[in-house]
């Protein structure tokens, strides 16, 4: 009899049999909900497919996903539901696909928001990242399309980026499944609270505006102590966003 030894791969925590189980559309009884957000055409659907094993068609044009797609996977005995949101450039405007994304992050209360960005166009993508970080405390940045960035001779210092943004950063090339195991682990750590995020807040705003935002947000917190995103709601109220005013009237954003 030959002695069966486990290969290095098999005993690794990232290995499929121990770690990731792609659940496809089987998303009942999930423990955590993960929202997948990002600019159009950054490969969200590719990341979604890599995690869930589903074969949602991906395409190289902005606006491919206009509705929410849902799928699941399990890792370390926890079941995750993944929601693929339509790509948006910003959360400040009002087209239907952008509203789908914004309302889900704001009202759907995902446990983790996975923000997918194009590493070769980081600066432009950061605009959305900063807006999302105003809404949620639990986020992971997926620095996707690293292969493309490398071809363009762009180097990104992930540690500095993670420190500046206050959330974990995972470089990936979802097309060739590079970095996906690390991504799954990081999502797990943030979901379980093992990793704590201290998200960046928008700094470069004039003082009198900032004071107003702080005053209003502390007022909101006083009335609703459990609310996680009072600052964002304050920002939107001051901007006169009808949808948010409506939500404040109906109390939609309050947990329980």
């Amino acid at each position: 009899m030959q002695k069966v030894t486990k290969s290095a791969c098999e005993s690794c925590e990232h290995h499929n049999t121990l770690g990731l189980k792609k659940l496809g559309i089987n998303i009942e009884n999930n423990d955590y909900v993960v929202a997948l957000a990002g600019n159009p055409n950054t490969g969200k659907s590719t990341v979604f497919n890599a995690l869930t094993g589903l074969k949602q068609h991906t395409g190289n044009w902005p606006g491919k996903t206009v509705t929410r797609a849902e799928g699941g996977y399990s890792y370390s005995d926890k079941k995750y539901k993944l929601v693929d949101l339509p790509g948006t450039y910003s959360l400040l405007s009002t087209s239907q696909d952008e509203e789908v994304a914004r309302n889900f992050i704001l009202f759907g209360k995902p446990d983790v928001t996975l923000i997918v960005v194009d590493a070769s166009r980081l600066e432009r993508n950061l605009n959305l990242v900063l807006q999302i970080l105003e809404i949620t405390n639990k986020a992971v940045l997926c620095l996707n399309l690293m292969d493309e960035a490398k071809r363009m001779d762009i180097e990104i210092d992930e540690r500095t980026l993670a420190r500046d943004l206050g959330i974990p950063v995972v470089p990936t090339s979802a097309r060739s499944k590079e970095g996906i195991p690390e991504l799954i682990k990081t999502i797990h750590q943030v979901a379980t609270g093992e990793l704590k995020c201290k998200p960046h807040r928008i700094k470069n705003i004039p003082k009198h505006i900032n004071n107003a935002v702080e005053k209003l947000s502390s007022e909101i917190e006083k009335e609703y102590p459990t609310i996680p995103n009072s600052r964002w709601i304050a920002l939107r109220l001051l901007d006169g966003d009808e949808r948010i005013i409506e939500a404040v009237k109906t109390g939609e954003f309050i947990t329980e």
Partner: protein
Amino acid sequence: MKTNKILNISNDLRWQIGEGFHDKLTEGIYSDAAQIAQNSVHKKGQQKRFRFDRNLDKIVTSKIWGFPIMIFILSFVLWLTIIGANYPSGLLSELLLQNIYPWLKSLAESIGFPWWLSGFLLDGVYLALAWVVAVMLPPMAIFFPLFTLLEDFGYLPRVAFNLDHLFKKSGAHGKQALTMSMGFGCNAAGVIATRIIDSPRERLIAIITNNFSLCNGRWPTQILIASIFIGTLVPASFAGALSAFSVISIALLGIFFTFLVSLILSKTLLKGEVSSFTLELPPYRPPRFWKTIYTSLIDRTLIVLWRACVFAAPAGAVIWLISNLTIGDATVANWLIVHLDGFGFILGLNGVILLAYIVAIPANEIVIPTILMLTVMSASIAGVGAGNGVMFEIESATATGEILKAGGWTLLTAVNLMLFSLLHNPCSTTIYTIYKETKSVKWTVVASVLPLILGFIVCFIVAQVWRIVI
């Protein structure tokens, strides 16, 4: 109420801040983003890749070359489809119609099926299915992967860029170019894709005109009729090119109608300003060939084929039934065809085609098989077919042509069928999708009836001019 308190405070603060909150906030976000990016991004040397993308974009979106390149690429894809589909199509119909069908027939006989059951199941349902598979599968299996490769490469947004100013001139939204491109795959998908358009007015225009993009179900009809009637007008070596050219012309005519109807709608029923938007041209990405082939086969080809089969089976049954049930001394089908023939003649079509389009409302995919079945039945062509409502055995496109010619078809019938296939009501799935998206009976009716009326008008004019001139 505590919520009112919050809203009151917010209102007070808004007065204090005054104008420009939104702009200041946006500026703040941008400068934060710039700072963070500066801290962590290092660019080495020249961006060769970007230069390549930009140079390619200069050519494919140039004012002079943009359109010719677009038309050339589309023609090339169609030409490959037409040339490539013929052979496997012949093989499939030989297998399904000449080998399996007689075997099933004799099997049914030996088990002792009554004539009506074997007629209903084999002559109706099975033959319709076999036909759909033989006629539809090969062109789809070639066309869709090619189209998907183009899509993955990043060509679609460039098409949108080229067409943008034309849409703007028609009073529509530039993103309609993208939803129109989606419509070339499937109109129902195109209608759903209009969600990327913000303004309800422009979205409605995009929904109503989406039907003018030739869809999955109609490409094979166009390709088949073009190869039979138009390709054969010239020597064999040019046949493929001419067929491709005529199909392209129909597709371009569809785009022309998209603009025309958009313009008319935006001047009449749907008046309003054109909104502007930013279109990002994504980087060109080398498509992963085999994966694309695989997913487009699974996602598109098989799903469309499945849909065609689901609709073809009952349609086959209906055709068999109407050709075997009788009113007085004629079958239902004959009665309908005779009564529709007059109207058909005025349109340069015939009763068979009109009846086929009524039977095929659920799916455009089954128009051609239905037409063939009804033609054989109504013309009672000797030598083919085994009885009423039974589809026959033919090996090639030429043989199909012989049948149709025997059924009284001319070049005019073929041309007008191609036109009518472009301009008629959307399939039932698309109509339902339009209703779900607009939630309005009125606009659903407009979107369904408008193309049909246009089709009648265009076919009528072509038929009259044709008969006077030729």
